[in-house]
Every structure is written in structure tokens, then in C-alpha cells.
């Protein structure tokens, strides 16, 4: 049944292009997020395993 629906999808390359674009958007957002993170917060986080106060 699903195959019937799927065969009707045209131009399947759009999947590949679409998701590559999606990846770059995500990558840019994450990078911007990351570089704006507060330094104290980063210091706290990276010391978590070491249990340093």
C-alpha cells in the first residue's frame, strides 16, 4: 500500500537537496548558538566530570 503512495513522489532528488540545505541551516544555527554561550556557563559545564567547584 505504502509503495503506491511512494511511487507517486516525483523528482526524488529534491529530498537530497532539501536535507543538505536543512543541514547547513542547522549547522549555522548551532554554530551561532555555540559561540554566543556565556563563558562562565561553559566553564561550569566542562568541569562537570571533574566535580570541581
Amino acid at each position, binding site marked *: 500500500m505504502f509503495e503506491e503512495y511512494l511511487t507517486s513522489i516525483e523528482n526524488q532528488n529534491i529530498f*537530497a537537496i532539501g536535507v543538505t540545505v*536543512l543541514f547547513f541551516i542547522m549547522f549555522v544555527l548551532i554554530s551561532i548558538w555555540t559561540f554566543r554561550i556565556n563563558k562562565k556557563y561553559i566553564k561550569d559545564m*566542562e568541569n*562537570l*566530570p571533574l566535580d570541581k567547584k
Partner: protein
Amino acid sequence: MSNSSTENFALEKFSYDNKIVRDFMVATLVWGVVGMLVGLLLAFQLVHPALSFNLQYTTFGRIRPIHTNAIIFAFVGNAIFMGIYYSLQRLCKARMFSDLLSKIHFWGWQSIIVLAALTLSLGFTSSKEYAELEWPIDILIALVWVIFAINFFGTILKRRERHLYVAIWFYIATVVTIAVLHIVNSIEIPVTLFKSYMVYAGVQDALVQWWYGHNAVAFFLTTPYLGLMYYFLPKAANRPVYSYKLSIVHFWSLIFLYIWAGPHHLLYSALPDWAQSLGTVFSIMLIAPSWGGMINGLLTLRGAWDKVRDSAILKFMVVAVTAYGMATFEGPMLSLKNVNAIAHFTDWIIAHVHIGALGWNGFLTFGILYWLVPKLYNTDLYSKKLANFHFWIGFLGILFYAIPMYWSGITQSLMWKQFTPEGILQYPNFLETVLQIKPMYFIRGIGGLFYFAGVIVMVYNLIKTAKQGSLIAEEEAEAPALSKTYSETIKPKAIFARHRILERRPVQFMLLSLVLVLIGGLVEIIPTMAIKSNIPTIASVKPYTPLELQGRDIYIREGCLGCHSQLVRPFRSETERYGEYSKAGEYVYDHPFTWGSKRTGPDLHREGLKYPNLWHYLHMDDPRSVSPGSIMPPYPWIHRQVLDISTTEAKINALRSVGVPYEIGYEKIANTDLQQQADIITKDLQKQGLDITSDKEIIALIAYLQRLGTDIKPK
């Protein structure tokens, strides 16, 4: 973490469960030894076929999946659980959610491993690499994984630490993705208690399998180990990770990209071109986040390299992270079509995966064990000298393993492709290419022996360490409870400063990871499921006859595809050697696909009608009687055992339910057809002077081998 919003709360006393960590640690050691021992046996079987002991339970085809499953799911699997149960409790400042679930998880996982070893040895296999286990065990795996997931997320939900450290993100991605992969790749129709057919066929099955197979590497051998690296490397070096920011970027990029790369296992195959290209592009892009992890690991030791000289633990970890970097550079290179054309199906791939398994997984596990066991037993390591000895013999072991395999892989490939000036194959007999690399197989075995010796020394060292200390089963700890209401002490300036909000919301975090993984999975798989447009059907391709079908199941049972591919690639060197290249439409009734991934022996897709029935009969009984020097084990039991035809009806029914066009009612007369075809082959063999009856398994196997690839051969 010092968190100003929690500091005002009273300290709560609790204890960490170290006993479950100890249990998984012991299981890691036991299954590591077993898995590597089976690996050694396999290595030397390729030099001395007599080492299969003429027993069906110990032949190469059956024990190869025991080795791979034991290393991946038993050795590495238990090491993952050991590391997660130790680090998660501490990073969450909470005991595991439920001691009972921890125990069920532990014993459930160990029973799966035992069942796996038994059933694989008995020949119950789906033949899908790293997912060979039959359907009852698949269900058990899903149940145990759910129990682990409940215990895992339960611990996170009752944590006393507001934010989730990066290691936990990697664990979350692992728990979620493995569940998805396992379920999708295990959708099969049961025929009997230990036999099932995949719902997918041919090219679709190949794509689903390598989407699974590649991501088993990604989300079982990589992401959980990166999580362990992010916890245990800073612990061992006593310094924070080099760049926490880098870890955020590389985490999201890695889990987004990894899921796409599966089709690089199927380059030049009958898979549609666009899917192959997608696999290559995303594999190349993967270098960046993979190396992000490696750089983060290695630079954590910046300014502390003097410690590496003295500490065996850090030595193991540095080599592990370096091996990770090498394997994750080599992987994308192997996914380039021109490199893949040379490397695929050869020992190069065996070298590549062992750089990952011996270097990355093995050495990181050893480093963690040497750090962890003294902590669990409140003592010092019994012998640093022995640990250093282990490091060097293990390191030599990796070199002695990998270098001969690279050498052998390239030699094979060059010999397979070598033409004479007249334009004919220089080595038309495949066996010549095998005999050429036999010494390499021997040296590889020695490398494995070195590595194994190191592991035995480690086991001794750790037992002595445990004996000189005493287990701290309950490790006391205290931390303030989390406040129900939480406000950021530092207000995010903008929407872009909100990643940390995600880090304190595990459920949302899990869902986002799941969505990313599903996007990759769906986009990769859905278009190929559109079978009509992607896989041209071929009118002359017909379903297997009942006898061929039974023969095919024997082929699967004996693990023939561990050494023989069924995929002729569109290269002149391959069409000259084997015949017409393989078409997607030829596999539409193959549940499961049997392309294989390695050519220790020749490709068999065009084997049908190449040799007389007698040749196959003699070859299976004693390969060296017709191919002097062959390293294939003998299969004498197939000549003795009576074919079980009681399953024919159920098999026809099951295959029809997944789309193979057997006519309704055919299952009732299938065994009559089976008998007729068996009689024809038997009479032919009897004419050659053989004393044989038509009810033996070998007759079915010959029927299948003679059918292979003949559908599109001109009659």
C-alpha cells in the same frame, strides 16, 4: 556544577551503585576474551582450513558472525553499559533509576549474548551482517533495550544536576537511534521458531541493511564511545575537555550526518545512482565532525603530554583517539567511488574496521578499565609495568594485524584487475589471488595473537587489582536536590543563546535527536521503497523453485556470504571474470539479499551452470579435491543430512505474504515440484557413478547454486 539556583537547598545523601558497574566490567572482560579468541580461530582457519575441525558448528561461515557480534555487542556493548552506568550516575548526581531494571538489563543482555552464540553456531541466522540473530532474539533485544532506556532516562529525570554534560547527549543519541535501527532492520516474517524472511527484498533490503550496518558502527561503536571519551579522558588527564563549544557543534553535526552515509557500502552496486552519490557526499562531510571529536580528545592533553609518558591509561586513550581519527578519515576516502572500486570486497576493509575495533574501541576500553577498576576497588593498579607491557604488545598487535591486511587488500585488488597486454585477465583463476595473500593471513593471525596476549595480561592485572582492594558496592555521595522552579542566573541575550535551555530538557533533547536521525533515515529509505520507479523489473526473473529456496536457506545457514559476494560490479575486470554485471531487477525475490561484503572466495552471482552438478558435489565435500590449495572448509554434513521439507509450505506462504508471486495453493504442491527437481539432479549425479539419494541437503544446495544468475543468461 556550581549552580547558584540550587545552592540554597539542603544536601541530599545517596549512594552510587557500583555493583552494576562491576558486573558490566566483568562481562566486558569475559566476552572480550571470548570474542577475540573466536577471531583468532577465524584468522588461522584462513591459513589452515583443518581448524574448522570438520564440524558444522565451528566452520568459518558460522563463527564469523559469532566473532563480530561478540566484539560489537558483547565486548563493546558491555563496555558501553559499564561506562554509562558509572558516568551517568555521577554526571546526574543520582543513583540509577532502578536497581531492579539495572539487574534485568544486565542479565537480559548476557542471556542475549549466550543465545546468540548458540543459535549462530547452530546455523540459525538471518544472514544480515551484525543483525544475524533470528526473530525471537530480536524481540528479546528490543525488550532489554527498552528496559535500559527506561532506566537511563529515569536516571536523567531524577537527576540533581540541572544541565546535561556533553557525554550524556552522546548517550541519548545512542539509546534512541539504536532502538530505531534495530526495529527497522528486524522487520521479518517468522516461518518457524528460528527461521524468518525479511519483508524487504534485494536492493531495498541491501539499503536498509547498510543503513543499519553503517549506523550500528556510528551509534554503537562511535557515539557512545565519544560519550565515554568526553567523560573518562578528562577524568584520566584531570583536566577539562579542550573545547566544550566544539563538542556542541560536532555532536549535532555528527548525528545529523552519520545517518546518511550507509549507501557508501553499496557503491557500484545495483542501488540507484542518486542514493550512492548521497552516501558519498555525506561520508565526505562526516570528516569534519569526526575530526572535531578527535581534535577535542587529543587537545584535551595540551600541555600535559608529559603525563602520557608515565601513564598507560593516557597512552591507551591517545592511541584510541588517534585510531578514531585515522578510521574516520579513511572511511570517507573509502566512500569515494574510485577508491571504493579498489578496496571494496578486499581485506582493506578488514584492516579498516580493525583500526576502529582494535584501536578506537579496544584501546579506549582498556584505558577506561585501567582507570576504573582501581576506583571501584578503592586501591591502586596492581602493576603499572604490566599495563605498559599490555599497551606495547597491543600496539604491536594492531600494526601486525593492520599492515598485512592493507597489503593483502591492495594485492588482491590489483591481481583481480590485472589484464595481460592481449587484454585477457592475467589471473583468471581466483585461487591464485588467494594463495598469494595466504602469508599475510598468517601474519595477521600473529598480530591478533599479540593483541590477545595483551588482553590476557590485562585480565590478570585487573584480577590482582580487585583482589588487593575491596569493592565499594555503594559509594556515598551528596548533592542538593534540584529546585522545581528554575530561572537562569544569566539571562540569555537572544534566541541564539538558548542551546543550554535544551541541555536541561532531556525529553526535548531526545526528541530533537530522534527527529534528526529520522529525517536522515526516511529521506534515504523512502525513495528506494518506491520500487517501481527505482528498480526496473525483468520479465525473465522468476521466484525460486521450492528446491532452490531450500538450497538458498542452506547457503544462508552455512554463512556462505561471509566469503562469497553475489554482486558483479560493472567493471570489465569483473564481467570478464564472472559474467554480466548484476542488475537490481534480478534480486526482487531475494528475502533477504545475499550480496555479501567480502570476497575471500570468488563472486557467485553468475555461478549457475558454470560447472557440472558433480563439480559442486565434490567441491562441497572437499574443496581441495577440485581446487588444490583452496582455503574453503569442507561441508561433508550437507551430503549426509536429510533436507527438511516439512517447512516448504510455510516458506512459500511467508514469501507470498511479502510479495513473491507464488500462486495461491502452490504451497500444497510445492514439495511435489521439489521432489521432481531433486530427482533430476540426483539422476545426473548417479550417472557419474555417485551413490546418492535425492533427499539430501546437497541436492537442494546444488539446485540453488545452479540457478544463481541464470535468469538473464541467454538460454
